[in-house]
């Protein structure tokens, strides 16, 4: 079941008739012989395969970085794919020069990925700053330099942007003028508008659907290529919106969509920082909440957050919709209440009002781009000094993403005293049954969970939940 797919690859139009599940990595390296795109892991964890993906959104061109090893070529249809070779039209770009000057490359295997990620960050058109620049290469691993020299390069590049007088010059034009991008980028927007995306396939029931592919390509890459009939869930439209005091998030919304959402930031101050602990930038650009829920990992981060917001799933078979509370969805390890002809359409939760607290905690071996050892999310709503709503979730503590039923309901109608809060922590500890695995021993996870609950309450009620309790 080959498909016709066309996209602009660097400056050339590519028309391919291929297996749509083929990864862009393989296509670029083997068919196009663009070997600057490297394969380091095929699991989204090294960034050697990073490419820039340009597409038209709301009538303008935007770029984001993705891991080509987890990216089905079908999703490149109608887009602009940029590899390191696509930057090389010009003399060395200031990023490339700075990597040479600072010794930010040694063996060179990771280098194109870093340069692509940083270049993509500059095109983002956002207000640039050092922390975001570092975050933009958080998905790239360099085993040789240990990143110290790369950090120097980032600093020097960011310094050169301090004086950028944005004016009304378009970001891409500015970058072309400063040699960060070759001139052909000028025409890409027009070219893409003329290059129609093929019609988006209907979501076909009973087929394996690839959303972001960040889970599927890691787990079942060979099956996707050889065995499965697959289809694709494309990102479209306005994915996060409110209606009748509820917030709706479409299943195809990505982690980046969540992190960029002004709406969510307003409801939950600091929300974007929680999302930054999810994967890396290229993973967040692809990983969808639908995929996160269906992945059913006991340590799924978004699932954990959604549980504490008392979210509901809107499940459809294309004709009828049913609504199911997320905390009733999972039936056991990686099993859930979904028929083979159904898919998740969206998720909703009530927008909280009045006095409320929300916090998310995640501890993993490495702070960034790592799966949690334990995570926990807590939501508490107060009325007149009384807790009227409490929802606590925890990941890595049971075969499913866990809603802490007893600990949460214990708090309802109680005052937020140290005694009550501590009592609920002790109840929660009895509700969990972690196991020893590669992410930590059961003993560790239990203690860690206790600490994270403490962290929530310490943030919410610092006067009563004080460090002395720990010491």
């Amino acid at each position: 079941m080959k498909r016709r797919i066309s996209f602009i690859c660097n400056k050339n139009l590519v028309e391919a008739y291929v297996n749509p599940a083929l990864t862009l990595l393989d296509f670029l390296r083997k068919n196009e012989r663009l070997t600057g795109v490297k394969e380091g892991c095929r699991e989204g964890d090294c960034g050697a395969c990073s490419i820039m993906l340009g597409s038209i959104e709301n009538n303008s061109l935007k770029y984001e970085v993705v891991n080509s090893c987890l990216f089905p070529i079908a999703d490149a249809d109608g887009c602009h794919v940029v590899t390191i070779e696509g930057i090389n039209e010009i003399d060395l770009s200031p990023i490339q020069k700075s990597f040479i000057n600072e010794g930010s490359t040694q063996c060179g295997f990771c280098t194109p990925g870093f340069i692509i990620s940083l270049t993509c960050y500059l095109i983002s058109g956002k207000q640039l700053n050092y922390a975001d620049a570092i975050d933009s290469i958080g998905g790239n691993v360099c085993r040789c330099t240990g990143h110290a020299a790369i950090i120097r390069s980032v600093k020097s590049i960011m310094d050169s942007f301090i004086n950028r007088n944005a004016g009304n010059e378009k970001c891409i034009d500015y970058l072309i003028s400063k040699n960060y991008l070759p001139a052909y980028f000028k025409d890409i927007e027009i070219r893409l508008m003329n290059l129609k995306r093929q019609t988006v396939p209907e979501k076909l029931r009973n087929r394996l659907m690839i959303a972001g592919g960040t889970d599927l390509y890691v787990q079942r890459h060979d099956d996707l290529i050889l065995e499965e009939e697959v289809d694709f869930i494309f990102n479209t439209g306005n994915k996060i919106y409110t209606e009748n005091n509820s917030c709706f998030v479409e299943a195809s919304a990505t982690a980046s969509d969540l992190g960029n959402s002004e709406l969510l930031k307003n409801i939950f101050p600091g929300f974007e920082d929680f999302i930054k602990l999810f994967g890396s930038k290229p993973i967040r650009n692809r990983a969808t909440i639908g995929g996160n829920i269906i992945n059913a990992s006991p340590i799924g981060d978004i699932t954990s957050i959604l549980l504490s917001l008392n979210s509901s799933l809107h499940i459809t078979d294309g004709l009828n919709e049913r609504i199911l509370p997320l905390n009733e969805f999972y039936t056991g390890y990686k099993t859930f209440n979904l028929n083979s002809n159904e898919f998740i359409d969206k998720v909703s939760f009530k927008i909280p009002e009045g006095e409320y607290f929300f916090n998310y905690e995640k501890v993993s071996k490495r702070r960034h781009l790592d799966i949690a050892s334990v995570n926990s999310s807590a939501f508490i709503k107060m009325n007149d000094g009384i807790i009227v709503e409490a929802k606590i979730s925890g990941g890595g503590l049971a075969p499913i993403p866990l809603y802490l039923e007893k600990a949460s309901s214990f708090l309802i109608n109680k005052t937020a005293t140290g005694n009550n809060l501590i009592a609920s922590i002790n109840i929660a500890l009895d509700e969990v049954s972690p196991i020893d695995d590669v992410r930590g021993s059961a003993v560790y996870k239990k203690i860690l969970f206790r600490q994270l609950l403490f962290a929530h309450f310490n943030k919410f009620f610092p006067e009563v939940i004080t460090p002395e309790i720990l010491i």
Partner: protein
Amino acid sequence: MKNYDWIEHVKGTSKFADDLPVVEGTLHAGVFTSPTAKGKITSLNIAEAISHPGIKAVFTAKDIPGKNQIGAIIADEPLLADEDLHYVGQPIALIVGVEEYSIKQALRKIKIEFEEQKPILDAREAFEKKELIIPPQIFAIGDIDNAWDKCDLIIEGTADTGAQEHLYLETQIAYSIPKEGGGIKLISSTQSPTAVQRCVSRILNLDMHKIEVDVQRLGGGFGGKEDQATAWAAMAALACNLLNQPIKLKLSRQEDMRYTGKRHPYSSDFKIGLKTDGTIIAYKVDFFQNAGAAADLSTAILDRTLFHCTNSYYIPNVKATAYSCRTNLPPNTAFRGFGGPQGMFVIEAAIHKAALKLNLQPFEIQAKNLLKENDKFPYGQKAINCVARKTWSSAVDKFQLAKKINYINEYNSINALSKKGIALMPICFGISFTNKMLNQASALVHIYTDGSVGISTAAIEMGQGVNMKLRQVASRIFSVDISKIKIETTNTTRIANTSPTAASSGADLNGKALEKTCLILRERLLKAAEELLKTGSNEELSLNNENIAVNGIKSNLAWDKLISFAYTNRIPLSAHAHYATPGIDFDRSAAKGNPFSYHVYGTAIIETTVDCLRGIYEINSIETIHDFGHSMNHIVDRSQAEGAIIQGLGWVTLEEIKHSSNGRLLSDSLSTYKVPDIHFTPDKVSVEFLENDFASEAIFNSKAVGEPPFMYSIGAYFALINAIMEFNPHIKIKYDSPLTPEKALLMLYEGKELNFSTPRNK
């Protein structure tokens, strides 16, 4: 000076083995491996796999025409397991097919049955069961038995260090192409082309001259491709030989992690005796090295552990014993530091433990015992041009140790749930292969008629910048621009009998050989120039900036003119020379001698912060004064040092190799094995150059840099321990690296109940 290779890197145009275009008819190979850590094959059925679509052949041990043996030092490792299985991931069969996906499927169709036996995973258990690769190795100096009486304090303990995955970004790969006369050309991602050539010759029963090994560059090696690139190359060659078709064999990341060896985990017992003022009188240590299932390079690594067991300290009475223990894990192998870090960790643990007892700061004991000029190492060599104390005192001054300590004390007194710790770490590392034979190299230089230069040596470029250093050597001697100089691939037909590019010695050995070769050519050229310039007798000619200078003054004879004149006059424009490091010797049986041509020194100060609520931490700074000799390339050397330091930080913190109780690797992907990422990099990594001109066997006095800085990171372990002790002073420290966030949290709350007691009056 900028590195020319880097221009290609930033453009993504450097060519790694997987980037080279494949020739027509190329097939791919996949490896079927042992599902058990210990057992005997009772039946192996490959029929179904062979008939899988797209599969051309399946090969097993019985198809090997020569000897089924890849052990380089000790012949104890088959290429393909015949009957006995020794570790999970041990190669058993090779599947060859037209494309990679179907090979993956066919691999699942091989049916194996075996008798399972109980594996040994732990070095001490192997030691108990007398599973030793070689007899125990002992280094001793002074009189340990009578030294204990002279000590005021004697402390005993254990210290463990973990395995480490190399995680070179380019996985193991080999591409084998048939040549006429039954020969083979191998593109291999190896640090050791001759090892590959020798092994393939043995496996295929072919003369070595029939096997050409060619290496452009590696996407990182770190020791992981010194001995362990060989097997994959041999398999590709085997299939190529049997099918007479080109074969590409590339491991996926997960295969690479599962099938290849790591840094050796060590478990050690120490006993240290000191005076109350901190002077170390005696040190006894037993090292139990987890070698894995075969010798590989373990015995050489064991040696280096012994060589570095006293790190940078002078200790008059030492007895160090090392056991290489055979277990049922993939054979462990070379990794930056080559056993040195494992040895140094133990002496640092001993000092730390002693300091707690003596109520001293560990750095007080460290400072007191640092090596001085002419002090003897336990193997009898004297510390010459020793800058151990100099680097220490400059670090203390330059990085303002006293001020740091004040600041940390202040911080710790006002923060209940966040604590800081500090540690110092001196290093001393010997340069040379400890196997004398390997300390040789040769170089081949061609000058082409247009004046451009092509250089072949045995050095493998894998990110360490050796190509650039070689260019600099030639450029300096010929006084021509770097752009005129090209470093060719490393190829066994151009340079025979290569030593591995390892032991930090690549630039020294090959640089010296190249220097010699270039000098030969320079002499010839100057002689030719004399004829041309027809000068009087007292005039001195030299090469100067692509020109010939007479008594230092530019002549009208340019470099390219001279070359073309030389060619016309039939003066040879190619030369080859050989270099052997002078002055090194080591008597194995007495364990005494001068194995190293020089030592590298340095001192680091490390500051860390522990989040005592979550058990997570940061390494805030690592600042070092490092002895580079007279660095010939600051950018390359600094980046090397930083990279080594941070790789070391990973080793003592995040990087944790976990196996199931039956020997299966659990941390077998990048999602479960975490290496430092950019957020983990300390805010401050400073590498200050201590310029020191005394290292005549270092090329241009520029000391070897690859490995030594790795060991600064050991200090981070102790800085973290010190921070944790600020929160929970009563812990029993296990000295068990890596200090993962899990271990940190468990230490922070050691001795406390799980359930919180409810707060008073609240």
